[in-house]
């Protein structure tokens, strides 16, 4: 598909993983104590792939050009607001909502990128951060008519919804891919449940829509990485002076990368709103921008698969690791003598449950110090160790011939 076996194989592996995720993420029976580690429920699976899209897009800017944007959540938020407005005004179909989200965030990225890219390095990061915080504060206050301020933008029964007003009943409609008036329709929340013994597998429409869009986004990103355009972006990262003296105008290249990654963020924002049609200003906050930076670095910035792994790990931590509360820990350590158990639980509980950020922080530090190439580098090292291919890894492999990660 790319004229490159490795890339095609990587895409296939990702596709299989993503399409079979309802099985893969649900390894434990529902009545067992391990059920809480099952991640195969629609809400979380949707988050995996949607934030995967966000991180893939961010990686096109940061991984290739080295421009560290600290304000990408602004585009996520703009995407969500646009999508919700589409639901309010036009129809509950997700297609126009997602299209508008991508378009508006692209325009927004063009504007912010045009100004921010006048500077590079830390000044660029600070400018993007400033713009994002500005957007956040504006969404909270001045733009209340558009964003509904603190409450956040929600659907209401009074919305015009021109295209499917006819079907309006007493309750709020839900988002759909195929209108309920056609056949039986296909709503985002529709989930097909398959119970095999103690195992419950859930196949959710919203998840599969997001998953297919993520695969598409991933495919496009691979093409960009391998194209002359991607090569120029990597040249921007290593030596802009030389590139200028080689007859290349670097500004439009970085701007194009910025807009593309902004559109990816808009797509992710639009999808978030499609799964759950509300949008709040906190989606634009700097912590959300920082999260995508961590995703990219944790997984491996500049690698193809890294951002997806990073997004998956962080969302897993946020949703699963954070559920390990003291009661569960007491159960686990019940075999220890009472006093000792209390002590162990007291220590461990600081790292689990609400303390998941602490574990994530430690993990992040370890990765940055010992695995500068992120989880992808870790995977490659393990793979080379297992297959005893101890040849020194050439740094040229880094982005050109991807280190692909068979396990994971």
């Amino acid at each position, binding site marked *: 598909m*790319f*004229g*490159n076996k490795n890339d095609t194989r990587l895409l296939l592996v990702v596709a299989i993983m993503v399409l079979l995720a309802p099985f893969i993420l649900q390894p434990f029976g529902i009545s067992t104590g391990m059920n809480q580690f099952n991640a195969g429920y629609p809400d979380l699976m949707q988050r995996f792939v949607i934030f995967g899209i966000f991180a893939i897009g961010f990686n096109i800017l940061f991984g290739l050009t080295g421009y560290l944007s600290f304000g990408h959540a602004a585009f996520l938020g703009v995407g969500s607001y646009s999508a919700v407005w589409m639901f309010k005004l036009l129809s509950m179909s997700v297609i126009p909502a997602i299209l508008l989200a991508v378009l508006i965030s692209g325009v927004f990225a063009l504007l912010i990128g045009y100004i921010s890219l006048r500077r590079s390095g830390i000044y660029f990061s600070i400018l993007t951060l400033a713009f994002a915080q500005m957007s956040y504060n504006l969404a909270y206050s001045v733009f209340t008519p558009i964003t509904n301020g603190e409450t956040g933008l929600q659907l209401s029964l009074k919305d015009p919804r021109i295209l499917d007003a006819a079907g309006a009943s007493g309750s709020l409609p839900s988002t759909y891919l195929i209108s309920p008036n056609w056949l039986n329709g296909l709503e985002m929340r529709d989930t097909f449940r398959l119970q095999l013994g103690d195992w419950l597998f859930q196949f959710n429409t919203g998840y599969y829509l997001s998953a297919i869009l993520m695969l598409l986004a991933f495919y496009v990103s691979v*093409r*960009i990485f*391998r*194209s*002359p*355009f*991607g*090569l*120029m972006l*990597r*040249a921007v*990262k*290593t*030596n802009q*002076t*030389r*590139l*200028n*003296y*080689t*007859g*290349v*105008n*670097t500004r*439009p*290249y970085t701007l*194009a990368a910025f807009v593309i990654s902004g559109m990816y963020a808009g797509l992710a924002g639009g999808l978030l709103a499609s799964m759950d049609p509300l949008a709040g200003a906190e989606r634009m906050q700097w912590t959300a921008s920082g999260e995508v930076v961590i995703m990219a670095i944790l997984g491996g910035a500049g690698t193809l698969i890294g951002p997806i792994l990073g997004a998956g790990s962080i969302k897993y931590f946020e949703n699963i690791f954070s559920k390990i509360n003291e009661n569960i820990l007491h159960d686990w350590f019940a075999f220890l003598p009472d006093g000792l158990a209390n002590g162990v639980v007291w220590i461990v509980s600081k790292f689990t449950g609400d303390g998941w950020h602490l574990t994530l922080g430690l993990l992040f530090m370890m990765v940055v110090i010992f695995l500068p190439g992120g989880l992808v580098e870790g995977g490659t090292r393990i793979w080379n160790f297992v297959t005893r291919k101890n040849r020194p890894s*050439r*740094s*040229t492999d880094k982005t*050109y011939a991807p280190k692909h990660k068979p396990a994971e």
Partner: protein
Amino acid sequence: MAILEVRNVSKRFGGLQALDDVNLSVEENTIHAIIGPNGAGKSTLLNCFVGKLLPDEGSVLFDGRSLLGAKPHEINQMGVSRVFQTPEIFGDLTVFENVIIPCFAKRDGAFSLNAWKGVRHEVDMREKAEQMLIDVSMQDKKDMTASSLSRGDKRRLEMAMCLSQDPQLLLLDEPTAGMSRSDTNNTIDLLKEIQAKRAITMAVIEHDMHVVFSLAEKISVLAQGTVIVEDLPENIKGNLKVQEAYLGTTAA
């Protein structure tokens, strides 16, 4: 015919008159050396050619077109390439990628959203880059990371990058600075070979007199911001003004 015409160029940095009414013309298909003691204004002059500095007065014409006010990438697109004093290469990329980037820049212009067709499918460009590496005998190093090359090879690579664009004018800023004698001789041979093979004009700034007299067909001597002599190499050696500029006193 003169391909590069410098007329009455002056540049002042605060109280320092770096260039004072410089006149210079580089003939097509020749190697023209610009020499002079430290602080004579050689690098300032070169920076005026490539769009890095804007002279206060005067004009710089390349092939009849003014270079003043043009940006570095625009000047390159006109056909002027530059080799730096310390090699400027894409350190994180492979040698091959380093050479194919200028090929794309030459074909696609200053910007192109060429994001769909993979680099590996750009057969023409790949062949061109491969050929260029063969020309500078670096084909066995094509998969190495550029930053891991020796200094001499980095210089060679930078020249390959410039030459892969078939420039009309190649500007070289001390191309043998910091090189060993044997590397210097190799570079001289390489430059001569290139000049013989391709119709190319070179303007060389150089300190090393051995290099200058081995290469140059014409020499301009710059001292205190102005051209004191412009002549053939054999006439420069005996020129009293030149000796004075270098030695500080009137040599006997």
